[in-house]
């Protein structure tokens, strides 16, 4: 089912949560809504589900106006952040719920419902949990049951709100791979909300980066990684360092900076900002550089360095401990970023540069 969203706005009291969202989701696509908390991503998901209603805009799914349909009629599978499994029903009854509540004329026969649930239990790899209550399950098991309950109605669209938010790191990794497999088997259009960029990029076909109620950028993992559309996206991608630079011919120049490794950008010449990640900067000894190593700590695998530069500005640099050059506190170093995003204070050269995918 293709989902087409135009001009969606939504306010809660005086706070504007969505400021005009335009988005098209292809049939069978696995899409991530990525953004910090308060960016409106969950509200957008809940509007698609029919659990909230927008103030203005359109939501059309497979040619049908969904804003005219209540949640019950949309045939969506929604997986809640804290699963919302019915605590008084067994795993089997939870998964069967969407089938057993259908009007008598559309309801499958009990044997057929049983067979569907058994299939799902096998797909979810939890057949042994069928007769347990949700209170007796671990977080990862609940997550699977919640997904099974949503999939049982063969949803037109599968929506997941922070599906792995409440799980620990090892289980997240497993479930992520497994969700990808389930998506490939069922082929349903899937949208999930996350604040974890690693999760979004690893799992999704396309990622929608949201900030402050707007879509900041839409693209594949590679596109967003290589060409963040704005300083906000770059910072959200982990670029916590901002350096003032001079842009000339798409390259950044600053004392003690060697930006040869960076791709050129389509930004106007003049003063600008370079956004860098602490873990993708190499250091080279250079007595002429204004950057001085002022602190060096180790966490066993990585060295955590602090360099002090012009105007007493400080930046963090993380280097793998193995193979790191001999670094002496007080030495001068040149920064050689391996990844970065540049933005001219004057804006891009052409308003719609081909690499930009933002709305």
């Amino acid at each position, binding site marked *: 089912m293709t989902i087409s969203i135009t001009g969606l706005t939504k306010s809660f009291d005086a706070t504007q949560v969505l400021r005009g969202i335009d988005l098209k989701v292809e049939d069978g696509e696995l899409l991530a809504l990525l953004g910090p908390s308060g960016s409106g991503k969950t509200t957008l998901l809940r509007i698609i*589900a*029919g*659990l909230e209603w927008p103030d203005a805009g359109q939501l059309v799914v497979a040619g049908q106006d969904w804003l005219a349909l*209540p*949640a*019950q*009629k*949309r*045939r*969506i*599978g*929604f997986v*809640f952040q*804290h699963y*919302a499994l*019915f*605590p*008084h*029903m067994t795993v089997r009854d939870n998964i069967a*719920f*969407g089938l057993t*509540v*259908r009007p008598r004329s559309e309801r499958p026969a009990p044997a057929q419902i049983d067979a569907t649930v058994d299939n799902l239990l096998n797909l979810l790899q939890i057949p042994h949990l069928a007769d347990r*209550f949700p*209170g*007796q399950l671990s977080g990862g098991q609940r997550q699977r049951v919640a997904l099974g*309950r*949503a999939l049982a*109605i063969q949803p037109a669209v599968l929506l997941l709100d922070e599906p792995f938010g409440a799980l620990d790191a090892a289980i997240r990794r497993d479930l992520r791979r497994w969700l990808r497999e389930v998506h490939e088997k069922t082929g349903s259009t899937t949208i999930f909300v996350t604040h974890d960029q690693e999760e979004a990029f690893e799992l999704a076909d396309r990622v929608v980066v949201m900030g402050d109620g707007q879509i900041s950028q839409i693209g594949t993992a590679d596109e967003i990684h290589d060409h963040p559309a704005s300083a906000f996206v770059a910072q959200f991608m982990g670029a916590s360092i901002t350096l003032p630079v001079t842009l000339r011919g798409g390259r950044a120049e600053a004392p003690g900076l060697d930006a040869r490794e960076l791709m050129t950008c389509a930004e106007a010449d003049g003063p600008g900002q370079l956004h860098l990640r602490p873990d993708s900067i190499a250091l080279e000894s250079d007595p002429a550089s204004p950057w001085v190593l002022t602190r060096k700590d180790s966490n066993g695998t990585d060295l955590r360095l602090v360099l002090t530069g012009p105007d007493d500005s400080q930046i963090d640099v993380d280097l793998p401990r193995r193979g790191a050059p001999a670094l002496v506190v007080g030495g001068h170093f040149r920064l050689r970023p391996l990844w970065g995003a540049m933005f001219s204070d004057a804006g891009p050269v052409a308003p719609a540069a081909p690499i930009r995918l933002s709305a």
Partner: protein
Amino acid sequence: MTDIAAPIRAKRVLPGFTLSLGTVLLYMTVIVLLPVLALILKGAEIGPARFWDIITSARTLAALRLTITAALIATAINAVYGLLMAWVLTRYEFPGRRILDALIDVPFALPTAVAGLSLTALFSGNGWFGQLLEPLGISVTYTIWGVALAMSFTSIPFVVRTVQPVLEDLDPAYEQAARTLGASEFTIFRRVVFPQILPAYLAGCTIALARSLGEFGAVVFIAGNLPFKTEIAALLAFIRLEEYDYQGAAAIALVLLFFALILLFVSNRLQARAMRFKER
């Protein structure tokens, strides 16, 4: 060979266990256990044959029948309206909600005799409601309906106040999940909301029933207290006391105590059944 180590006595994290439990037990003994024990001992003095005679006398049986029937009617009414009231108070936002919420507690706060008097005034032949009902051939005062009315007045807060907090704490995500799965609003209530408030609801209805069985002050004014017709069991026990018939009073009281215990037992079993999903 090593000595067998003395078992380590686990220390309680929270201090004051002995003192607090001791106080509670002492208090319970003085306030609850001793009176009940005295009642049972008093009843035991009677001897089985005499006891049986007292409780199967026509007047006692009539009083018990009236008390139980009226209490069941009152509880049935409260079960419906108490649930509705708890639902309205938790689910809707409307002007005056807080005032309505506070009004629920009035039957708790009002002396039951005062409640009985005002109900009698309202429903007697020349009262506001009585005037309207009398021409239709419905009389409330001095009938079982008056008894049930007084009982339901004093016991309604029990249902509302036990169900209300559970409804308030119910995560709205359950209902939203059911909605996305295609359930109609009524199905959501029947299959998702109601089973989760059922334990509290049962508890509230049981306490309301127990309270109705024992209600005295509100009932005596509206009932008229005609022997064999509108005389409740608690009043009969009181009359026996006034006649210095302590044995008769104790026998009737013991029957009421017996019903109360049965009720608590059944209620606990029902609640345990309704909450079995919470067991680990």
